[in-house]
Structures are given as structure tokens and as C-alpha cells.
């Protein structure tokens, strides 16, 4: 690009300073605000699905409770724990980057990634269970339409199978969308790990770590709400 004017050059700046910013502080602020604005869009995106959940739970309380009780509470709780630990390691990764400790920083990022992949693995196990139980709604999977054994579900009084199908539709939509965001997060973490190993981040420039951390914590928060709403709502109806 032709530089023909005496503009503010990046002579004084960090190699990572982009030409349209005046200084690193402005660049960092812009990046952080940008990620927060993006998270707002994510909140509204998931919000639509939470609305559908709230309405249908209100319309079909017995069916939703029955279907929810059929979910594996142990796997769900373990997954919740896994994500909480991963949020902790992510926060630590940001801390170590801020103070310039590269080894612990990389270690924490790697741990976060492993925990994220663990979450996805457990999710895959759960999804497979649903597949074998014929609980995948509609004819989404050819040859495995929705058709569970009614008695295996322990339907509470008032619950019908189509209503149960509605629950599973919402379950797959919400956890599926959440899992997709986890996969994207895993990709972003991989990028962070590679760049950290190459030494691209230092106490002066590490906003990608912070920003991706924000994204990761957000995905954790979505699960913090999904777990009780999907897995725990009907447990108090279980009697023995």
C-alpha cells in the first residue's frame, strides 16, 4: 500500500498494532467491546430458544417432567462440572498471559481444550443413548423416527408422546446449538494454543486470549442454565 502521508505510523507501536488504531490501548478496548457486543447477539439468539422452552414447558408440564427425568442426570451433572473446571482453567490462562508466564498459560489453555472435548464426548454418549432409545424427534434421522417404548419413559399422568417429542425437539435444538458453539470454541482454543506456543502473546498484547475467554465463559453460562432447565425440572416428581 502506498504510504505517502505523514500519518501516525506504527514506529512507536507493538508489532501487533493495526494501522488504523492510534495505540494498543485503543485496539484492546475495541476488541473487548466488540466481543461483548457479539455476546449480546448470542444472548438474543439463545433467548429465542429459551422462550420456546418456557412456553412449551408451561403448556405440557407433565410431559416435560417425564421426558426430563429420562435424561441421565449423572452425565449432565458431570458435564456441568467439566465446564465449570474449564472456565476456571480458562480464567487462569488469561491470568498467566497477563503476568507473562508462558508455560502455565499454554498448559491452562490445553487443559481447557481437553475439558471442552470431554464435554463433547459425554454429549456424544448421551446423544447415542437417545438414538438407541428412538428418542430423536421427527424423521430427522432416516430410519430412526421418534418411537420410544412408552412404558420405558414412565409417563406422568397427563403426558402424551407428541408432547414428549416436543421436549426432545427443544432438548436437541438447545444442546445441539450449545455443542456447536463448544466446537467453535475448541477451534478457537486450538488457534490460541498454537499462537501461544509461537510466543505471539505477551503482557502488552494478549487480547485474543481475553476475548476468546469471554466467549468460552459465555458458552459455560448457557450450560449453567440448560442443565437445571433440561435435566432437573421433573426430579421432584420422582418418588422412589
Amino acid at each position, binding site marked *: 500500500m502506498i504510504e505517502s502521508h505523514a500519518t501516525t505510523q506504527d514506529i512507536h507501536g507493538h508489532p501487533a498494532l493495526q494501522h488504523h488504531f492510534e495505540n494498543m*490501548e485503543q485496539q*484492546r*478496548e475495541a476488541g*473487548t*467491546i466488540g466481543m*461483548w*457486543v457479539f*455476546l*449480546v447477539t448470542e*444472548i*438474543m439468539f439463545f*433467548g*429465542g430458544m*429459551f*422462550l420456546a422452552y*418456557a*412456553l412449551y414447558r*408451561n403448556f405440557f408440564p407433565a410431559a416435560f417432567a417425564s421426558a426430563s427425568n429420562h435424561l441421565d*442426570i449423572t452425565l449432565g*451433572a458431570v458435564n*456441568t*462440572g467439566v465446564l*465449570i*473446571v474449564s*472456565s*476456571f482453567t*480458562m*480464567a*487462569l490462562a488469561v*491470568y498467566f498471559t*497477563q*503476568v507473562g508466564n508462558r508455560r502455565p498459560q499454554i498448559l491452562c489453555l490445553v487443559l481447557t481444550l481437553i475439558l471442552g472435548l470431554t464435554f463433547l464426548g459425554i454429549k456424544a454418549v448421551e446423544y447415542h443413548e437417545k438414538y438407541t432409545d428412538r428418542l430423536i424427534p421427527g424423521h430427522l434421522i432416516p430410519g430412526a423416527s421418534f418411537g420410544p417404548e412408552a412404558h420405558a419413559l414412565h409417563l406422568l399422568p397427563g403426558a402424551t408422546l407428541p408432547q414428549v417429542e416436543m421436549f426432545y425437539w427443544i432438548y436437541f435444538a438447545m444442546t445441539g446449538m450449545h455443542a456447536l458453539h463448544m466446537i467453535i470454541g475448541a477451534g478457537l482454543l486450538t488457534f490460541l494454543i498454537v499462537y501461544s506456543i509461537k510466543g505471539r502473546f505477551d503482557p502488552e498484547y494478549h487480547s485474543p486470549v*481475553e476475548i476468546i*475467554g*469471554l466467549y468460552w*465463559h*459465555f458458552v*459455560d*453460562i448457557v450450560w*449453567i*442454565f440448560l*442443565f*437445571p*432447565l433440561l435435566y*432437573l*425440572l421433573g*426430579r*421432584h*416428581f*420422582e418418588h422412589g
Partner: protein
Amino acid sequence: MSEHIVPVKIYFAIFLALLAGTALTVIAAFVDFPWRLNTIVALTIASIKATLVVLYFMHVRYSPRLVWVIVASALFWMGILFAFTFSDYFTRNWFSSGY
């Protein structure tokens, strides 16, 4: 906006609180509270957990006011979506006389 470095022990405390909240919500799920209290208890615990993550892990506690405004706006807007849609569904049968 100078950067604030949160000490590790605060992160650890929040982490323990989150695990405790998870255990609490699982236990509370099996207790049969009256009316709709089960839902309220579950959502309250989840909201507290989320608030801890937002304030400490996501550094909002130490962030400039603009970030607070952004977070509050998002919650407010989701609230609009819920409140006004509920205003339809939950008033449909008010004073129903065949309408």
C-alpha cells in the same frame, strides 16, 4: 482503561462457589417444594452462578461502565422478548366469555 489483574485465589474461590452451586441445585431438584418454587430455586441458583462467572471470570466487576451497560441491555432485551410474549399467552383466558 488500564488492565486489572484478578488474583488467582479469587478465581479459585469463585470456582469452588460454582461447584457448590451445582451440587446445591442437584440436591434441591429432588426436594418437592410447594407451588412453582422448584423452578424459582433452580433459576435463582443458576442466576447466581452466572453472575459470578460474569463478574469475576469475565472481569465485568473490573470493567468500564460501558461493559456493564452492554450486559444489562442484553438481559433487558431478553426480558422484553419474554415479558411481551408472555403478555399474550398468559392473558388469553382472562375474563374468557367465549372470545
